[in-house]
């Protein structure tokens, strides 16, 4: 009875079920853990890094970028750092990126997680040259409440520290009405130029930095595609394509049937 065909079949089915069950259990625990450790929105990556989700797919955690960095800026996330384990990152308040012109950390990356083209400019079509100013590691953000320059104390530490001084950070002068004879020197960050190197955060004199680098995805908003800058001829060109593609964007009302000028001049009943 013990080895009857039906018992064999039962044992076979049971072993299959057990295999599937154990695999599913393992997969659930494992994937929960993996999902947990890969989500770290506040991490700053080396120059040339792909977007975070792509970066984390590509990075093979070899540490070659870390070894190439002459300033020991880059670190590999250790277990316990609460970052995706083994991936490179930096903390600008401790050591910022010093923006080497030859960007040694990027060409050594074997996996393509740090992409050379993203930090190269082209002199002509075939001749690419590394250009650290194209790096977008993050974006400097100012907490105006704790920035002492906004209090009227003269400080331009971040402005002076910025490797793109006068471009990524500019100083806005305005009159200090409280004293009547001093100026405010307010720093402003320009997102289209800031590389996120963190030299400003490193230089900031306040106890906890009043200017700090955040990942771009976190620091920046997005206006959406339907706002068009009418004063920017290039942006306004988008209207031509929109007209073709999305006719319903243009609502026809009784007023808008006429040209804008006519509708202004024609005061109707008034």
């Amino acid at each position, binding site marked *: 009875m013990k080895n009857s065909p039906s018992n064999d079949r039962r044992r076979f089915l049971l072993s299959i079920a057990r295999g599937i069950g154990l695999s599913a259990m*393992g997969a659930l625990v*494992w994937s929960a853990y993996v999902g947990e450790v890969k989500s770290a929105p506040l991490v700053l990556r080396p120059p040339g890094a792909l977007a975070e989700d792509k970066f984390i*797919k590509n990075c093979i955690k070899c*540490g070659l970028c870390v070894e190439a960095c002459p300033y020991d800026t880059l670190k590999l996330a250790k277990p316990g750092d609460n970052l995706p384990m083994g991936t490179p990152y930096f903390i600008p308040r401790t050591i910022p990126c010093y923006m080497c012109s030859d960007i040694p950390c990027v060409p050594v*990356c074997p996996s*393509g997680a740090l992409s050379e083209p993203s930090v190269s400019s082209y002199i002509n079509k075939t001749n690419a040259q590394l250009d650290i100013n194209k790096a977008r590691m993050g974006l400097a953000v100012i907490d105006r409440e704790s920035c002492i320059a906004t209090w009227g104390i003269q400080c331009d530490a971040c402005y002076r520290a910025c490797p793109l001084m006068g471009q990524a950070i500019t100083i806005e002068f305005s009159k200090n009405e409280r004293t009547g004879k001093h100026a405010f020197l307010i720093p402003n960050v320009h997102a289209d130029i800031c590389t996120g190197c963190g030299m400003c955060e490193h230089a900031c004199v306040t106890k906890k930095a009043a200017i700090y680098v955040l990942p771009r995805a976190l620091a920046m908003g997005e206006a959406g595609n339907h706002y068009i800058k009418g004063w920017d001829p290039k942006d306004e060109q988008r209207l031509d394509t929109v007209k073709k593609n999305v006719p319903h964007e243009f609502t026809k009302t009784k007023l808008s049937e006429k040209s804008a000028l006519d509708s202004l001049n024609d005061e109707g009943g008034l």
Partner: protein
Amino acid sequence: MKHYKYLLMRRFSQIAILVLYIGANAWGWKILQGDLSASLLMGKVPLADPYAVVQIAVTGATLGIDIILGALIVTFFYGVIGGRAFCSWICPINMITDTAAWLRRKLKFSEVQKRFYMSRSLRYWILGLSLILSAVMGVAAFELISPVSMAHRGAIFGMGMGGGALVVIFLFDLLVHENGWCGYICPLGASYALIGKFSLIRIHHDANKCTDCRDCITVCPEKEVLHMVNRSSESVLMGECTNCGRCVDVCKEDALGFSIRSQLKQPKDEK
């Protein structure tokens, strides 16, 4: 001394490679840069762990040319050198698990402990599972938890809390299951077993010299591969053999030794 020849050679190789990697990070040596996941040999030749590269590939990432080339070089190397030579000659975890296995033998744990059943093929299940998870989660799944990478990376770049994983493996091997990590769980070893299945350098067993003392079986971390001992003269062909050479070391009758596998004919003499 003769009885520790390959063991000493292995320890030398494991430690030397680790020191070269550490030297690259600490003092800027250019011999072996990076870590076991991917590295640069002499500043030029790319090397990459084929298993890690496959995991990255299934996430749908566009691979860099260097790691593809590196993975091919490594695959070719172990395809020739043989078996899971990586596990016994390079992998730093091997020193921990060997210590645990040695302690187990000294303390005679295996004699008093009733072994619970674990399938040797578990590691292949984990290998498959890791690839599925990598594809689903969009991140190399085993690389995120691999104690092998963790230990090696930790030694080079700083350990953090990674030391805990090593203690877990040591205690598991010592108290729970003989050679539990390397022999049953590690999918990295499983990947090298697959690569090394057809390799050329093999342990050969000469049944005519064998006195059936079974010393080789006692020390072997993958006992199944020595199924021919005292039965027939043939080479160890299973990819699971790590080519560690411990069986050659302990065999007093010289019945075991390294040989080149003959692809054409498996020499077999009847007993």
